[in-house]
């Protein structure tokens, strides 16, 4: 069976420390119309995995092993030009820190419009209308197309990234913590927008998040990462309902409750290490 995206045996190391495995033999796949959530420790390799799929790893990092196939094509074998065609058109990406990927000297309207011009040839009034429509979909008044990134709030920047990433209706969306700066009402609006794309366009989604509320609401499949390894993966019901790995159990124990009754308690890593973590 051909997956929408399959990652096989992906290992990432710093160029100058080839034995330090930031991502260690990671494998999983994404299916059309389904959402896979990647959760796990801060620093466990979630963003590097996503960046590596997009071919955007920094040159200080090295993909030591692994194969990434998108719709059956090995992405490493594509030319730079072919990869550019896929990026933004077939695969949309929402980066974890919006300011690192928005250009500070271009208006947000221009930046949302760019993929539409490059990939779909939209120009003039048709382009303007489409940009306005995308802004509306993410809850930003269309006249803000004239604003520059530093004139927007944190959550508005995040939504500009979201608008850019879905502009060309990609077959797959990689979203790295896409709603961290959004209040829950706007977050609900964005998640429902993404869900619509999933249902109407059969878009597959790789969603990285720390928010187990979001995982419970949108995931079909869950992958748990810990120190570069995948320690557990399965259906959302299994991973949240019947976690097997001690790290997953410990992490779920830390989820704060809405009533504020459960005391805050971080993971006791000493205990976790004894409890056999490979």
């Amino acid at each position, binding site marked *: 069976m051909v997956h929408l995206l399959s990652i096989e045996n992906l290992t990432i190391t710093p160029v100058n420390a080839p034995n330090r495995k930031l991502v260690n033999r990671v494998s999983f796949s994404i299916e059309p119309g389904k959402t896979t959530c990647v959760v796990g420790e*801060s620093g466990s390799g979630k963003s590097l995995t996503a960046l590596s799929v997009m071919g955007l790893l920094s040159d200080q990092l090295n993909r030591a092993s692994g194969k990434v196939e998108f719709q059956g094509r090995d992405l490493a074998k594509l030319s730079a030009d072919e990869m550019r065609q896929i990026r933004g058109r077939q695969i949309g990406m929402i980066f974890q820190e919006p*300011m690192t990927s928005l250009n500070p000297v271009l208006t947000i309207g221009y930046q949302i419009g760019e993929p539409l011009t490059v990939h779909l040839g939209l120009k003039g009034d048709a382009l303007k209308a489409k940009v306005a429509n995308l802004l509306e979909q993410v809850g930003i008044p269309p006249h803000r197309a004239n604003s520059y990134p530093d004139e927007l709030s*944190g959550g508005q920047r995040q939504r500009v990234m979201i608008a850019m990433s879905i502009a060309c209706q990609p077959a797959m969306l990689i979203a790295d913590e896409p709603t961290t*700066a959004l209040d829950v*009402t*706007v977050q*609900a609006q964005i998640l429902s927008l993404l869900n619509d794309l999933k249902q109407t366009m059969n878009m597959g989604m790789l969603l990285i998040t*720390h928010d187990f509320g979001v995982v*419970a*609401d949108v995931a079909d499949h869950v992958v748990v990462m810990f120190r570069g390894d995948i320690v557990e993966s399965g259906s959302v019901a299994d991973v949240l309902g019947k976690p097997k790995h001690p790290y997953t159990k410990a992490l779920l124990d830390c989820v704060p409750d809405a009533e504020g009754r459960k005391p805050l308690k971080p993971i006791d890593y000493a205990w976790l290490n004894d409890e056999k973590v490979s």
Partner: protein
Amino acid sequence: MGEFVLKARDLNKSYIQRSGRFGFGTTKVKALDNVSLDLKHGSTLAVVGESGSGKSTLARCLLQLQPLDSGSVLFQGRDLAELPAHELREQRRHLQMIFQDPFASLNPRMRVGEIVGEGLLIHRLGNQEEQRERVVQMLKRVGLSEADMLKYPHEFSGGQRQRIGIARALVLNPKVVVCDEPVSALDVSIQAQILLLLKELQQEMALSYIFISHDLRVVRHVADEIAVMYQGKIVERGAIDDIYRSPSQEYTQNLLKSIPGQRALALSN
């Protein structure tokens, strides 16, 4: 000194935004519309509200990082706008900010040890040896290590960068910290660790926090009082338990209703 460490009176701030079909028109938008608040000594005031409602603007204006159109901010009874420059610089050490966008707020050309230690150097707190020791201790308390001192911001993950910003603010033993989404990029374990650290420091040093967050579960755990912002105004405020039990504004009710995963997580617990 009184019960309140920080008082803000009638803060107003507008932005001019380009508008119209070709961007030649302008409109004035009120990001802060007569906002007043009082922060009790040693307590935590949460500020929640819609994306774009003016929370970060409030944060920057409270700390004089951005000029107000009108209104005043009193820190320990003194109007910050009227302090002479050298005194404001002096007071800055006591008024710290954890920024919403960690990457943008960290100088990419400085090593983490320098970033976190810079304030100690500027305010001449301790000798070189003591400064280094304080930086190391603070990095450890936020879950980073001594070896991280020599690295640059781009060598870290998003959540690790957020913790560098937290360490930089807390290492100075400030009196007031304005935290703008301080734990939004952290896994729930590190999040608990940081929230406990904030509480510990609060007890040790009677620190006061303004805690901006969109996560109402987190807010419930850390705040004594809460203020809800909507379109530049504070529309509701009160003791945390009262607001969660019986929110009076429709927007607040919607916020509480929209916490994701309530049904599914309730089932699995």
